[in-house]
C-alpha cells in the first residue's frame, strides 16, 4: 500500500515537472527565408513544430515567427490575403481571423497602425484577450506581405508582469529580422 502510494506520488511529480526537464536549446528551429538574432536565455520547446521561442515557458511568453504562403486559408475566416493588399487591409484580415476564434474571449484591439519591418511596409496590432480559464494575455503582432509570402512576428505574454518584462527582447528580435533573399548565396559567402 505504502509502496504503491510512493510510486503514484512520484509519477505525479514526474508528470508535473515534464516541462522543466525539457532540454532548453534552439535546436530544431526550422529553416525559413528569414534570419533573426535570438537573445540569450530563449529556447524552443521541442514538441512544437513552429518557429517559436520562449524564455519562461509558452504560457508566460513566446515569440512566434511565421512565413506562410499568402493564399493559405485561415482557420476562422474565409478571407484571404493577396499581393495587392494594403497593410491596413492585411491587418483587417488578421484581426478578423483572431476575432472569429472562439477560443479567444474579450478580444480588444488597442492599436492598429502602419509599421516598417526589415524596410518593408507592414502593420502592427496590439491587442489583449482572455482565454477560457480567464488568463489575460497581451499580443504585439507585426506582419507584412512580401512576394508570395506573409511574414509575421508576434510577441504574446501574460499581461501581468511578463508582457512588459520581455518586450525589449522582442523588439531586439524584430529589429534584427531580415529576409534572406538568396540563402544559397549567403551560405556560400559564409563558407568563404
Amino acid at each position: 500500500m505504502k509502496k504503491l502510494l510512493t510510486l503514484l506520488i512520484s509519477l505525479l511529480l514526474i508528470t508535473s515537472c515534464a516541462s522543466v526537464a525539457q532540454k532548453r536549446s534552439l535546436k530544431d528551429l526550422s529553416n525559413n527565408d528569414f534570419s533573426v538574432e535570438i537573445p540569450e536565455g530563449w529556447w524552443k520547446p521541442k514538441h512544437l513544430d513552429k518557429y517559436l521561442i520562449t524564455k519562461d515557458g509558452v504560457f508566460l511568453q513566446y515569440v512566434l515567427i511565421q512565413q506562410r504562403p499568402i493564399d493559405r486559408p485561415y482557420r476562422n475566416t474565409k478571407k484571404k490575403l493577396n499581393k495587392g493588399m494594403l497593410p491596413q487591409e492585411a491587418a483587417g484580415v488578421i484581426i478578423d481571423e483572431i476575432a472569429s476564434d472562439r477560443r479567444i474571449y474579450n478580444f480588444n484591439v488597442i492599436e492598429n497602425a502602419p509599421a516598417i519591418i526589415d524596410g518593408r511596409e507592414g502593420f502592427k496590432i496590439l491587442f489583449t484577450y482572455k482565454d477560457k480559464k480567464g488568463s489575460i494575455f497581451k499580443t504585439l503582432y507585426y506582419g507584412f506581405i512580401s512576394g508570395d509570402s506573409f511574414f509575421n512576428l508576434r510577441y504574446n505574454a501574460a499581461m501581468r508582469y511578463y508582457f512588459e518584462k520581455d518586450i525589449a527582447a522582442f523588439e531586439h528580435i524584430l529589429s534584427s529580422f531580415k529576409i534572406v533573399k538568396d540563402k544559397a548565396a549567403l551560405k556560400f559567402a559564409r563558407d568563404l
Partner: protein
Amino acid sequence: MKNIALIIAVCCLVAGCATSRPIPVYQTLTASEEEQMLWRRAQEEQDAIDGSGLLYQDAEIENYLNQIAEKLQTNSISADISFQIKVIKDPKLNAFALPNGVIYIHTGILARMENEAQLAALLAHEMTHCTHRHSLKTLRNIKDRTQAKSATVRELAQLLGITGSIASINGYTRELETEADRVGLDLAVKANYDPNEVLKLFELLKQENEIEGVEEPYFLGTHPKVQQRIENVKRWLAENNRGKIKGSKNTIKFQSRMSRLMLENARLDLRQGKFFIAQSTVKKYLSVNPDDAQAYFLLGEIFRQRGWKNDAAAAINNYEKSISLNPSFAESHKAMGLIHYKDGEKRRAKKYFESCLLLSPNTADKAYIQGYLKLCAANGEG
C-alpha cells in the same frame, strides 16, 4: 485503496495537462449528487460565457425571448425550472441549453429565422433538453459504459463531469435530439405556434449550409444530421395531422425585434468571410429599414472586401448611398477614400480621407489615414 489510487491517477493526468484545474472525484454518486455536479459545471460554463464578452447585450431582445420561453413553459412538464434565455454574438447556426435552464442562442440562427413560430420551436427544443434531463442521461450513459469496460482517460474525465454538461453544447445522442424535436413541437403547438414553420427553417438552413460549405452545427445538428431532423419534423407533422392546422407566426413582431441583431450578425458573417450570407442578411434588413446608412456601408464593405470583378463599383454605389443618407457617417468616407486610393485616384481619396478625419478625429485607423494623406501630398495632391 482503489479510491486513493484513482484519485492519485487522476491527479497525475491533471498535472500532465498543466492548464487544467484539479477535479473533485465523486465515487459514489447518487442521482441528486450527479445532478448537482452537472449544475455546478453548468454554472462554470455560464460564468465563462457570460464573462467572455461574447454576449449580445440587448435587454429588449432578451425580454422578448424570455417571454416566449415563459409561454412555452406553461405546458411543460417542469414548470419549476427557471429558464433564462441569452444571445451569443456568433454567426454559427447554433443554440444550446445548459442543464440549469440557461439557454444560449447564437445571433447566426436568429438572423436566419423569419418569424416567432420558428424561434418558439427552437426554444421549445432546447427547453426539452433541460426538462427531460438530457445532460443527466448522457452522464449516466457514460458512467454505465465506463463501469462496463476499462475506463479511458476521456471517459474518466467525462465521468468526473469535465464534459458532462458540455454535451449540451456539442449535441446529444440521436435519440435524445429526436425526443427534443418531438416534445418541442408539442410545446410549440400547445402555445399556438404554427409547427410547419420549423420545417421551413430547417430547409433554409440546410440550403445555406450547402452554399457556404459549412460543417453542420449542433442545432441542425450533429445528432442526427439535418436531413434526418427534417424527416423527424415531417413524420411528426404527418402523425399529428398538423400539416393543415395553422398556428400563429408573428412575423412582423419578430422581424422588428430582430432587426438590429440581423445587422450585427451580418457584420460577424463578413468578419468570417461569408460574403453571400452577409449580403443576403443586409438586403433582408434593408427591406425593412430602407434608409439605414450603416446597412449601405456594410453592403459596400461586403463588395469591397470580396473584391470580385465589378465589386469595386458596387461598393462605391453603396458607400455613396450611405453618405447620401447620413453625410456625417465617417466610416463610409474612409471606405471611399480607401477604394479611390487603391485605384490611384489620389485627389478623390484625399478628399474622403480628410472628411473622415474631420468627422471622426479619433477613428481607429487614424494612423493609416494620416499615412495615406502624406503620400497623397507627396504625389502632388496636397
